[in-house]
């Protein structure tokens, strides 16, 4: 099986490639991204291509003619790209890579990275949506994820391939470039003054494992991928030994300016997580993908605040010598 991993330069994309390399049935792995992979890959082929460079991307994918696509070329706003650039890159990568893969003629299965933000939060919406809950995103990130799902579904209809959308909880960890993670690691973190909504976090390895299982099993349809348990803004902030800054109403606008000045922009979807929470029912994914142990949110939170001990270069050199 030839597998294409779009967004292979990201933390999760690189990990997906590493895990795929362990499977003998995956004969060839190719990937592309605008940044190089985060870790060493042994038998994956990587091409550094900006997803907005249509001609190069289409030529690369057409030449590879994948049987399956792990579509991680969906960029979270303010993760590495600005919200506008992230939306443009995600749309371009979806349309060009998936379109070229389908036209190449060998494609059988696509797994798309999506998120719980597609369900939306607010009055009358489920607190813990399952896959069959109504879809009504209420921020730009949720709408982008839904658009990607719809584009993939359109390709599936035209070319008779199966599509699985993995609706991830917020992926976080000490090495994952996540806007929520950056905000939670600020010395002072804005939290809702009159609420404390729950949100779930998912570890990088679990996200990657779910993607690989979905690829190998060829599941058709959406799946929520959520770790057990949850946290809340107040609990997370105190757990990280940070100072909570209670905010309400128009104060959020000021808080967003402040966090941006401190180097951690607060995009709409992260603001929504802090104000309204974000969880989902991942029972089906556990059964269908046989995920086994998934790290609980509290462990991922601990990992988010865990930093490796800094060893001065002089001391390290002395030790090696």
């Amino acid at each position: 099986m030839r597998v294409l991993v779009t967004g292979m330069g990201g933390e999760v994309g690189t990990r997906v490639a590493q895990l795929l390399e362990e499977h003998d049935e995956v004969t060839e792995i190719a990937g592309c991204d605008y940044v190089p992979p985060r870790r060493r890959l042994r038998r994956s082929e990587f091409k550094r291509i900006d997803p907005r460079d249509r001609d190069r991307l289409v030529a690369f994918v057409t030449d590879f003619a994948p049987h399956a696509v792990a579509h991680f070329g969906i960029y979270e706003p303010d993760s590495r790209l600005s919200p506008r650039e992230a939306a443009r890159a995600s749309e371009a990568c979806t349309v060009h890579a998936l379109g070229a893969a389908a036209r190449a003629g060998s494609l059988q299965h696509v797994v798309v990275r999506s998120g719980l933000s597609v369900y939306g939060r607010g009055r009358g919406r489920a607190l813990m949506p399952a896959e069959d809950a109504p879809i009504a995103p209420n921020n730009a990130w949720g709408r982008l994820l839904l658009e990607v799902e719809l584009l993939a579904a359109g390709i599936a209809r035209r070319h008779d391939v199966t599509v699985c959308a993995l609706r991830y909880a917020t992926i976080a960890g000490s090495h994952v470039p996540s806007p929520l993670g950056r905000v939670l690691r600020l010395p002072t973190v804005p939290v809702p003054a009159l609420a404390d909504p729950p949100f779930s976090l998912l570890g990088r390895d679990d996200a990657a494992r779910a993607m690989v299982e979905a690829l190998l099993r060829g599941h058709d349809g959406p799946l929520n991928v959520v770790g057990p348990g949850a946290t809340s803004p107040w609990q997370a902030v105190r757990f990280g030994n940070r100072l909570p800054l209670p905010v309400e109403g128009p104060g959020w606008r000021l808080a967003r300016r402040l966090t941006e000045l401190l180097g951690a922009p607060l995009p709409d979807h992260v603001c929504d997580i802090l104000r309204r929470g974000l969880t989902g029912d991942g029972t089906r994914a556990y059964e269908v993908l046989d995920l086994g142990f998934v790290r609980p949110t509290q462990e991922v939170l601990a990992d988010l605040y865990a930093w490796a001990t800094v060893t001065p270069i002089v001391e390290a050199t002395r030790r090696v010598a």
Partner: protein
Amino acid sequence: MSTSAVTDGRAPTAIAPNYGIDADRVLTVDDPIRWLLRRLDGRFAVDEFGGDPHLMDLLAPVPAAAIRVEVEEAHRLPRAGAALLVSNRGIGLAEPFVLGLAVRRAVRRRLRVVGLPSLPVIRPLFQKLGAIGYSPNDVAAMLRAGHLLAAPLGMTWLRAGAGEPPRSLLAAALGFPVIPVAVCQGGLFGTSPGVWPTAPWRVVIGEPMLPPPGTDPHDQLAAAELAEQVRDAVRALLDQSREP
């Protein structure tokens, strides 16, 4: 009629606090200083539904001090696994506390109550204490997560009886045990005229009910039939509890 597990002294012992993942079983409460330190350090967990087990266990003795509760047929309450309790209610303010106390005492589990109104401040606060809104999706998710839930029949105000059954919630609960429960009003917060102020509330647990084997989980007719059966069962329990 057997009496409650509480009065029998057969309630299982509490396990040591972990406040990590288990949002179902009642844990030993920290002493006040440790409790405060734990809150300040953020060493507690919230569950996916916004429930805060640490806070729930701390505040549980507050209604227990004000409301006297007697539980009958407590052995019918499951000690583990998901189930939906369906009970009558007058105005519906005191009944959730009464049911929660009954379940805590009988099987040392935390009861999650369905039907929280969407009001600012009130909703987040009671969500922390284990309540959720009137959402079939959330009820189904909570049952899949193995919780013990309580959903009320329609309000009967000052009249004692069984109100309209929550059909959409029962449809979401198909496949899980549904347990009819009669809550007989007592003193303090009870609304029935003629009830002595010190009289205890009585909670009578009915036989668990399930739709016929092989029922499709989306079968609306089965859900409607189950709803009628549950209302009849609650009514029968209420009648039975009034008999001298």
